């Protein structure tokens, strides 16, 4: 039986750069590898990787396995799965870390089942049990109403990690590491799906994940219009972005890209203003990392007030325009 050793991060690339989720995974992986006194490696796969292997080292990796192949330009389950499965079989890692992203959600369960091992998705905390050396995997369950700690004794231990749950290391370009170009034969006959079209649903203004301030609306907003007027005006004053809970996205009042929640975007702005949002656990899961939650809701019993630092009980149609006007004055002065 192979000896399972080391921690490997499955990195992602967005526009030729490492996105924050990958540097967060490297930060988390570095701590776990240090606890185990083993190596941290990183897998990067795309058509061309540019400077990203060096970046991965600067953010904590000891080794970077690079797989460059024209068929890996865009993520496809049936090609990427072959790459990760073959590398995992070759290097027998103890722990595989992936992001709880569009790619990670799609890839990690396939990988775990193919390798015959267990998986915990959407982890927010990871540590090594000092006695068993097993990975303790903490994840929210019941829509965020509780948390569970799992462990898995089949190897490798595979987890996906929620965005913004872990901290990246400070970038250090003087860190030394090894880049290992790796050839993986990709069998195109195993690719059973075909992407025929990609459609971008444009969202103008500040990107939700990067916004320091988010003004979000819920079911109680009542329709698409206020997102473009009342909420947008408030967001503009604070140089923030407009978001939404699930019902406005499901009803088509806003594009899905604005959906904040367990199954939408996970955000952690300085200020999160929740307007006419009841505060279902699924929504809180997407915004609970915010520094300050401010709630406006006409129902004093709404769950959102259990999460908020400041709140106003009342109809948003009356509260928000006055709030926006006063903020504009304060910020101008």
């Amino acid at each position, binding site marked *: 039986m192979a000896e399972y050793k080391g921690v490997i991060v499955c990195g992602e690339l967005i526009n030729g750069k490492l996105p924050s989720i990958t540097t967060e995974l490297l930060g988390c992986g570095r701590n776990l590898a240090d606890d185990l006194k083993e190596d941290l490696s990183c897998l990067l796969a795309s058509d061309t990787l540019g400077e990203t292997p060096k970046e991965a080292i600067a953010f904590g990796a000891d080794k970077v396995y690079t797989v460059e192949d024209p068929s890996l330009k865009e993520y496809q389950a049936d090609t990427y799965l072959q790459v990760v499965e073959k590398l995992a079989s070759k290097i027998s890692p103890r722990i595989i870390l992936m992001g709880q992203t*569009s790619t990670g959600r799609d890839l990690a369960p396939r990988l775990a089942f193919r390798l015959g091992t*267990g998986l915990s998705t959407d982890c927010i905390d990871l540590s090594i049990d000092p006695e068993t050396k097993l990975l303790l995997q903490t994840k929210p369950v019941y829509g965020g109403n509780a948390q569970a700690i799992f462990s898995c004794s089949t190897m490798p231990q595979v987890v996906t990690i929620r965005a913004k749950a872990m901290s990246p290391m400070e970038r250090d370009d003087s860190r030394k590491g090894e880049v290992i170009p790796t050839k993986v034969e990709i069998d195109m006959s195993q690719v059973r799906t075909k992407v025929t079209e990609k*459609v971008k649903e444009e969202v103008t203004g500040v990107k939700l994940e990067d916004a320091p301030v988010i003004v979000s609306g819920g079911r109680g907003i009542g329709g698409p219009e206020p997102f473009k007027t009342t909420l947008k005006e408030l967001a503009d004053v604070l140089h923030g972005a407009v978001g939404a809970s699930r019902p406005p996205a499901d009803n088509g009042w806003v594009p899905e890209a604005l959906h904040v929640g367990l199954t939408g975007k996970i955000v952690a702005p300085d200020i999160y203003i929740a307007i006419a949002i009841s505060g279902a656990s699924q929504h809180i899961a997407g915004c609970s990392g915010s520094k300050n939650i401010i709630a406006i809701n006409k129902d004093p019993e709404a769950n959102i007030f259990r999460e908020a630092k400041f709140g106003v009980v009342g109809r948003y149609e009356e*509260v928000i325009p006055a709030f926006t006007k006063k903020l504009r004055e304060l910020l101008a002065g």
Partner: protein
Amino acid sequence: MPNMIVCCKQVPDPEAPPVVFKVDSTTNKMTLPPDVKPVIGQYDEFAMEAALRIKDKAGGKITILSLGNKLVRDVIKKTLAVGGDELILLEDEAFEEGDSWSTAYALAMAIKKIGEYDLIFCGRQSSDWDAGQVGLGIAEILGIPAVTLARKLEVTDGKLRVERVIPDGYEVVEVGFPALITVTSELGSLRYPALKGIMAAAKKQPTIWKPADIGLELSQVGAAGRRVELAKLFQPVKEVKCEIIGGETLVEAGVNLATKLREAKII
């Protein structure tokens, strides 16, 4: 006409107010008051709706598969009332306390026993453990392709065309039969059952399969078949206390809120 299978899980109502969810730390289990009724997982309802929409246009048969113990007939029969044709329950004490692995394995074995299928639908994740693994696990065990996060589906020329949600929009994916599809909320809510459907469903009896009926040993199902162990279930203590800002009028409350945020140096 496609043969379809929809996997549905019975879960505690996830829309119940958060305060009623209480963990019993001695048993590591979630306890809920008896007035919180079980429901079909919300994402599994979207999966059911996806299959129904295909049946509306292309015809075919829908078999619903559910795994658990002491499944509430009125809850699970909703899938028949809205237009499902057959209901198979993997129902046994031994199926309890499974993880994604043992659940996917049992469902896959049941699907093999059903034999003929073109499309399998699952919700993107369950509404209790939120793992999002079982659908893809079934596809891996059966060795069939899978497309996740479907929001729209169309059968054309013996193929399935899926709109799959990606971070900044969607992609169109084509896949042949058989395939497994996981469905997300943007697809739309499950239709309401018609009275006729409810009455027809009441008369139908589900087929019950035990582990042995799908060729599984007791050691392979439920808690015994787990790959991931639950060490602890807990509820973190919340520290936030909300300060409610008032005023003579709501306009004044809005103004006071802005002033307060400035005082607290938040803006």
